[in-house]
């Protein structure tokens, strides 16, 4: 038996979350989804730049990866939100950002930007590897049919590369959901920040951290199912040797049993 664990706190956090918690959960979700999306776009742009014949583009792409993959993301978050004010004396990101339809907390917006830019530097390598994995003959065949390079890239190479990109992308997003907790540093109360705040008033770290671990597990589990569905769709042409939806679910929860299969 675990000594002194207040089960009712854990219970309440898991089965009766209050609106403050739901708001924190929602922040974690939208921050990680938007940051990951931004990361994919930046990664794609940087990957295409890296393959350019024009050397300054290749150089810029390399510099981008060097800086953003080589420095801690928490430092990047700090500089995105505070940097412009502290270094140059102007406000890059205001306290709240107005998008017309809705306003977003400035710190959350800065967090999304910083996490997205950081993620882009990792996505560049993943996307490049995906493009490289497509047989060169595919591009050559498309070109010999008279397709311009851009069209061939868009219609022939990138769609095939997507199949190689999705599995590591899923990993990245899984990581992103947990990394997004770093934005608590600039004052965004997301899932982990909410747990810290509760723990600071109640002094019950074990209960609140166990509960928050449970919720991250829910998020990552839901994502692994979504990812399995995406992968399944993308491998439609090779259907037969991949796992079914329910096999994936079972796989996620019972990895040992799945060893027997060729998964």
């Amino acid at each position, binding site marked *: 038996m675990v000594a002194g664990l207040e089960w009712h706190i854990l219970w309440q956090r898991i089965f009766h979350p209050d609106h403050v918690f739901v708001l924190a959960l929602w922040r974690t979700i939208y921050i990680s989804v938007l940051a990951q999306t931004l990361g994919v776009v930046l990664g794609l742009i940087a990957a295409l730049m890296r393959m350019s014949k024009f050397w300054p583009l290749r150089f810029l792409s390399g510099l981008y990866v060097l800086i953003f993959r080589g420095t801690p993301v928490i430092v990047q978050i700090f500089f995105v939100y505070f940097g412009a004010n502290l270094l140059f004396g102007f406000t890059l990101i205001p306290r709240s950002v107005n998008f017309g339809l809705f306003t977003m907390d400035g710190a959350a917006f800065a967090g999304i930007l910083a996490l997205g830019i950081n993620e882009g530097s990792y996505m560049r390598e993943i996307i490049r590897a995906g493009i490289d994995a497509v047989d060169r003959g595919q591009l050559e065949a498309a070109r010999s049919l008279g397709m311009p390079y851009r069209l061939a890239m868009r219609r022939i190479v990138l769609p095939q590369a997507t199949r190689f990109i999705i599995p590591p992308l899923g990993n990245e997003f899984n990581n992103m959901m947990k990394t997004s907790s770093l934005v608590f540093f600039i004052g965004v109360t997301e899932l982990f920040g909410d747990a810290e*705040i509760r723990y*600071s008033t109640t002094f019950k770290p074990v209960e609140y951290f166990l509960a928050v671990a449970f919720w991250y597990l829910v998020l990552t589990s839901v994502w692994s199912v979504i990812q399995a569905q995406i992968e399944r769709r993308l491998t439609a042409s090779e259907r037969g040797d991949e796992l079914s939806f329910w096999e994936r679910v079972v796989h996620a929860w019972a990895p040992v049993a799945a060893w027997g299969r060729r998964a």
Partner: protein
Amino acid sequence: MSPSRLTPPAGAVIVLLALIVAGCGGGKKSAATTTATTTSAGGASIQAPASIKSAGTLVFCSDITYPPEESYKPGTTTPEGSDIDIGTYIAQKMGVKARFDNTGFDGIIAALLAKKCDAIISGMNDTPARRKQVAFVDYLKVGQSFMVKSGNPAKIAGIASIAGKAASVETGTTNKDYLDAQSKKLQAQGKKAIKVVTFPKDTDAANALKTGKVDAYFGDAPVAAYYIEKDPSSFAIGGTPINPIPIGIAILKSDTALQAAVKQAVSAMYADGTMDTILARWKLNKAVAKLK
């Protein structure tokens, strides 16, 4: 593979473009928009600086993980505590609303310098090092306490008895600076140094004591008193509070209008007895000292 199979990536691209467009548009718009909030004139007697008056809100940066000075009411996003009451009173005197933005203590001065808030109220000690960066309007004096395991197994009653032992502190605090300085002094006297262990949050520092990773926690007296009240089976006080230093509201050095207004509000708070009420409400009478 038929073209229709490509919808997920295509959809993603559209979402992304929308995001980028929204991002660019938003940046420009927000610069032009000023948030207009209704001004509550009740009890207003101090002239607020023009920028705050037009915004209708006095924004404080506060590390809201620091009971009883500032913490969230359980299950809400409503901050409460002695600093919250003091900040609210000051804003009321200026005829504006108070808002408290939760900011990590290690980045809190950076947030003020970056103008993410108008002032800091976060139990912050007024120190010469911090005065190089910001101006302070002091409002109380706070001592610092050692908190130990209940029963005080390590027999800690003050600086002399902590030599050679481990003490936890929150990073970026005067508590840490003080212990570091005392540690050097002890070494100069030929005694063992204090093993100072720093944590990102004050509660983490207290938790290190609870789990036996350190022999004592060193922090502000009101906070130590709060922890002990919350968890008397784990914690006890080690000796009497030492080294009382003023705590103040930090304001940008250039913002002299706000400094003057806050100064007036603090003396009004002392004069009309509100400060006594607040200290009594948060049971801080023993842990803090009034300025005069």
